[in-house]
């Protein structure tokens, strides 16, 4: 499905079902160098089980035009504009990695317009090492291999996004290369990492959300270690938010390394 958001063509995968404003909506937000396709299984399931799904390609990524966001705050503004463009009064936000920060910031701004917040593979602060930041700009292929190695925890992933026979290491590399190539003006790899690294409003934002929040973490995640989410979890609890924490025995790409467990955790949380 294509929408015009802030004057730019914006692509949202709807999980194989037509958008229906009468249903509750879930917006799925990808991370750095990813696109909507990282959510294929989860989005397709939700779309066929009562939800509208908008698995978006962020501006300047994949099938979406527009300027790639330079900050988490800009990306959060885009999510607000996306809901407006789609005519969605209220939605659940599910974000992975960088997308989790965008979802968090958007939830803080949208308050009651957000029904549920799911932060998959999150950390705060989400600092990126200077070496990786530099490599993402000057040696993106090398940096892509580095993050792929850090993101994965198994050589034997279960049947995944493309079905049985998917080699998730290779699929992640290919997707990263494709998304990087999709924007000829901006290195969205470096820009996305910079946005993660510079985001400083996480603790404030978590106190401002008006919905329950699920932290869905990877026990073996080397990109956003579960430890690095504990501060945000504590802050949410201190602020009296309804907090649920789930840990899966996988790395940073929960959606492909544990597609079923990720789906069930999100599905069950959205039923609350």
């Amino acid at each position: 499905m294509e929408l015009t958001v802030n004057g730019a063509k914006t692509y949202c995968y709807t999980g194989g079902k037509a958008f229906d404003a009468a249903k509750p909506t879930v917006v799925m937000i990808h991370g750095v160098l990813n696109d909507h396709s990282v959510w294929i299984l989860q989005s397709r399931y939700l779309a066929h089980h009562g939800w509208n799904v908008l698995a978006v390609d962020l501006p300047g990524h994949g099938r979406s035009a527009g300027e790639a966001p330079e900050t988490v705050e800009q990306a959060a503004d885009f999510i607000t504009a996306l809901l407006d463009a789609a005519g969605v009064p209220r939605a659940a936000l599910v974000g992975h990695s960088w997308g989790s920060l965008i979802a968090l910031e958007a939830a803080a701004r949208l308050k009651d317009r957000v029904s549920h917040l799911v932060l998959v593979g999150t950390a705060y602060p989400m600092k990126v090492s200077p070496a990786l930041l530099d490599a993402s700009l000057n040696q993106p292929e090398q940096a892509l291999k580095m993050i792929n190695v850090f993101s994965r925890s198994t050589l034997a992933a279960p049947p995944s996004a493309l079905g049985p026979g998917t080699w998730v290491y290779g699929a992640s590399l290919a997707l990263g290369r494709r998304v990087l190539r999709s924007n000829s003006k901006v290195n969205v790899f470096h820009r996305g990492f910079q946005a993660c690294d510079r985001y400083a409003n996480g603790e404030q934002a978590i106190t401002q959300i008006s919905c329950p929040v699920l932290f869905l973490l990877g026990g073996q995640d080397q990109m956003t270690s579960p430890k690095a989410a504990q501060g945000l979890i504590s802050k949410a609890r201190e602020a009296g938010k309804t907090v649920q924490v789930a840990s899966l025995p996988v790395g940073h790409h929960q959606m492909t390394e544990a597609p079923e467990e990720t789906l069930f955790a999100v599905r069950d949380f959205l039923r609350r």
Partner: protein
Amino acid sequence: MPGYSDPGFDTLALHAGAAPDPATGARAVPIHLTTSFVFESSDHAASLFNLERPGHVYSRISNPTNAVFEQRMAALEGGIGAIAVASGQAALHLAIATLMGAGSHIVASTALYGGSQNLLHYTLRRFGIETTFVKPGDIDGWRAAVRPNTKLFFGETVGNPGLDVLDIPTVSAIAHEAGVPLLVDSTLTSPWLIKPFEHGADLVYHSATKFLSGHGTVIGGVVVDGGSFDWDASGRFPELSQAYDGFHNMVFTEESTVGAFLLRARREGLRDFGACMSPHTAWLILQGLETLPLRMARHMSNTEKVVAFLASQPFVSRVGHPLLDSHPSHALAQKLLPRGAGSVFSFDIKGNREQGKAFIEALKLFSHLANVGDCRSLVIHPASTTHFRMSDGALAGAGISQGTIRLSIGLEDPDDLIDDLKRALKAAEKAGA
């Protein structure tokens, strides 16, 4: 960062796609000999059919043992995923049938396995798919052969049996300029010698019957997707970029940014054409795959010795291996295949057809049969067997003469192989006296 998170080729050959079985603790990959898999509920069944949840339904479409083989091959090739099929020919057919229908056109190398040549030249023509054949080294020829309906470039990493090395970087660049993917048959090289994706190929397939297995016990094939070709940008593949009412109106390129080919190949190709691999076969191929690096190293060292021996024999008029300066692909092989250009090659003896027969019949260790890539050394006379349907002109185009003998060098003691060849050469000489 070598190690568990960033494993090398030899580690992947043993571990990619497989972990100890969570149900039983079995360390080796179990053989899942079952046609079908129980659904947890009606909703689970519907979700599996509708690609909402991952898993197996029916072993024609997917199977856990096959999936290990598929993941492992994708890992070794540097691809995103793979599909195991009944044979190498089934792999080629699956790739073609996924990408095109009647009215389409292929540009292919002249230096192909005879079965592939048959499929393209005769069989597919009957189904409305035409092929233009181009000598693999004729770079201008590849470019000139492109038509508005061209859907695929196709060649072998090293042509069978002349070992013309395909200039994958150059040919793939021409293909990509035209918005067409390059499919490469890497059967004779295996990923240990070359990973075609690293040089620009988009799809790779193997007859897994050969080096991947090594043991010569089963027939199988596999097609691997590099995930690099942009089917949308090409504009030539409505099969992948437009809604397909044969499968939930799915737009495969929207469903998966990098895996559209694999989605359609499995969901349509295996479902409808049905050329699936038996899980038992997948398991046997996995047994071979585990030792692929060790075997390929030995294949290559034995080949070097046999090539050197044959090149020194006065009764041998030509040895067609890129190891030799005299081979037209010598320089390209040095660049693309630094570990060697394979252990299947041909040579000509200075004799007539009867002397050729005498040579083959005098061999004791080399087995006379129609296969290559076995752990045992093999021999065949292409003009009367694998390529017998080809005209003299087509044979010449593939670098084959009536006196050409093809060898597949195995893993025996190299001195024993040389002794066997020495004796057969003497017998051939005598037959002409």
